[in-house]
């Protein structure tokens, strides 16, 4: 059981939760994730660790409440106990130094990008962050990112703030084959796939942080397997970060859709035995 310390709405349906987790706070590194089970009756879901606070012995996660479990998670108020929280899982993000690095993210991925962008910067790289949002009021963690990187650009789908278009279009407008030596991308699969396609042949090493379906997160179930360069990998233990130019994003899309109808059924289901919290 882990106590919720703070809760803040960052944008419509996007909530930041700060949760007490002393051991994870001490050990986590940028790019790693946790698995949570908000309530006794919840599913297990993976979430990227966004930040931590040594004084409060806490970690921070940012949740987009679109499914049953994410809604259950953001229903937790400060002082409430999160049923399960385990981690830190996966391998830390790959770091280099003295390079021109581009960090790209879309939607709630912007929050997940923050620790990686910060780590790249602290490791002595010049970091340009390209972040996407639906419109101006969906931008999240703007101040934190600005402080963490050398250059921050926003793209909005409706043009209400910054570049009018998506993150990959923004990248193409700002950069070419030789602008960056290394990059990190996190967000919706179509966006990561487009970023990989756009930079293929650029001589840019691009890392994509994947978020497939997962249960245990320790290499036991194999539900999170992805194909990377014709090899089967487990995202939970081999990843979550892989070479974006080698990931089979189409397969990942299909695998992540496997339970879509059932998730809808679960969301709409009124439990017979009275376990439902809504």
């Amino acid at each position, binding site marked *: 059981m882990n106590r919720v310390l703070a809760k803040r709405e960052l944008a419509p349906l996007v909530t930041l939760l700060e949760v007490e987790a002393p051991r994870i706070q001490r050990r986590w590194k940028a790019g790693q994730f946790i698995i949570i089970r908000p309530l006794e009756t919840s*599913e297990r879901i993976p979430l990227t660790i966004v930040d931590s606070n040594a004084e409060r012995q806490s970690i921070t996660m940012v949740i987009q409440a679109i499914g049953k479990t994410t809604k259950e998670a953001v229903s937790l108020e400060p002082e409430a106990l999160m049923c399960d929280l385990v981690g830190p899982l996966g391998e830390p993000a790959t770091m280099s130094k003295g390079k021109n690095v581009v960090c790209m993210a879309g939607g709630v991925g912007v929050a997940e990008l923050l620790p990686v962008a910060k780590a790249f910067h602290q490791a002595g790289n010049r970091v340009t962050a390209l972040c996407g949002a639906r419109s101006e009021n969906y931008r999240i963690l703007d101040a934190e990112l600005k402080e963490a990187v050398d250059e921050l650009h926003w793209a909005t789908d409706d043009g209400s703030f910054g570049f009018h278009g998506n993150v990959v279009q923004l990248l193409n407008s700002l950069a070419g084959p030789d602008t960056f030596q290394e990059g990190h991308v996190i967000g919706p699969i179509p966006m990561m796939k487009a970023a990989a396609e756009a930079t293929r042949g650029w001589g840019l090493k691009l890392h994509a942080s994947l978020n497939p379906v997962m*249960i245990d997160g*320790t290499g036991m*179930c194999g539900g999170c397997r992805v194909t990377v360069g014709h090899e089967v990998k487990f995202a939970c233990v081999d990843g979550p970060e892989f070479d974006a130019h080698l990931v089979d994003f189409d397969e990942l899309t299909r695998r992540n859709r496997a339970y879509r109808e059932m998730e809808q059924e679960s969301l709409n289901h009124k439990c017979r*035995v009275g376990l439902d919290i809504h």
Partner: protein
Amino acid sequence: MAAPPLKYKPNPKAPRQALPLLDAQVRARTAEEVALGFTPEQVSVEAQRCLQCAKPTCVEACPLHIDIKRFIARLAENEFQAAHDVISEQSPFPGVCGRVCQHELFCEDACIVGRKWDPVAIGSLERFAADHARLRMQELATSYPKPTGPKVALVGSGPASLIAAYDLIRWNYQVTIFEALHKLGGVLAYGIPNFRLPREILREEIARLQNMGVEFVVDFIAGKTASLAELMEEGYQAIFIGTGAGLPHMMGIPGENLVGVYTANEFLTRINLMEAFKFPDAPTPVRVGKRTIVVGGGNSAMDAARWANRMGSETTILYRRGRVELKARLEEIEHAEEEGIKFEFLAAPVALYGDENGYVKEIECIRMELGEPDESGRRAPVPIESSRHRIAVDTVVAAIGQAPNPTLQKVTPQLITRRGRILIDEHGETSMAHVYAGGDVVRGGSTVILAMKDGRAAAQAIHNALSGTPEVQ
């Protein structure tokens, strides 16, 4: 000391009592336990079949050395609670072991009665003693004082750690069990189906350890949440690694990542641990279509097939050898057959094909013939190239074995391993001082009872190391 005279005359010629089972038609649609347990009348007949040998070979054969002879004598005298007390001297898990231990390979194989007639049904008797005593678990535990000895950490809450905890806490050690998942029991919780081991039995027998003062920490992944060195710094003077064999083998054939293709681990974890059989009343789903093929011939294959069948899928087990080579317990094979599961022997998958959305729809198989014996001593399957054929399928489960969980080893290079298995010396100690290991993480895929044997041996070794006294207490 001479044993007191028996109050009855043994009758080994009486027929071995058959364990009553839930009707095959009924059970094929429910998660309820298949085996119903002996009636007191059956217990009386079966217990009196025991010869009460002067030198009980069954006790020697039992990896936990439970005093089988003595607990059976108590049962024969209708002293059911006393029988449970006798078992408790060695094991607090008769409800679990009475159901999942392979008695046919150990105590019942050694039973002298079995030389002439059928061996005494020791497993079913153990189970009866457990079920009879269930209601007094709480009472049994309350008399234990709080332990004050050195702190010992046990990693993983499966059978190996559970028995080690029982021994160590009785020697006054402060015992903490660290579990990666949110539920306790390890493979007993995620691997073994409810219809073989009802969850309340597992919970209650683990609760007995909790009542004795064993501390359980869930959501803790050794090597990730804390390193072994950190645990030592926190005052644990010895660590036992019982992290099991949870890394699934993949088939390595095209189409393995299609939707609807599961490892047995994922399939069973979704259903056993996350209770997907109750979906949508439980939040985690599992995709079980109209036709399921389970690949493999071990207990996990039987378990997965029997679940798929229970969830309404027409289910076939595909095995590359023949029926006699199946690795699963005979009892489980027979139960699967009774429940209507089909077996396709001497066949192996070579490829999987999907539809336009990436859902598996066909499995391509190849026929095998048995050739010369391989390193396992069984005749090796040899493919017949001209025999490729496709079968329509919605769900495929690969139950082809597993390797030790690699997480801890990966971040602890001081631990010497071979093919992922942690190497130990004759005392169960690893290449790190005061760090012991046992069960599947040492053996590869093995059995519950051998894991318990290892856990017991490690507890003894830890006790010897920490108390400086090599004698058995």
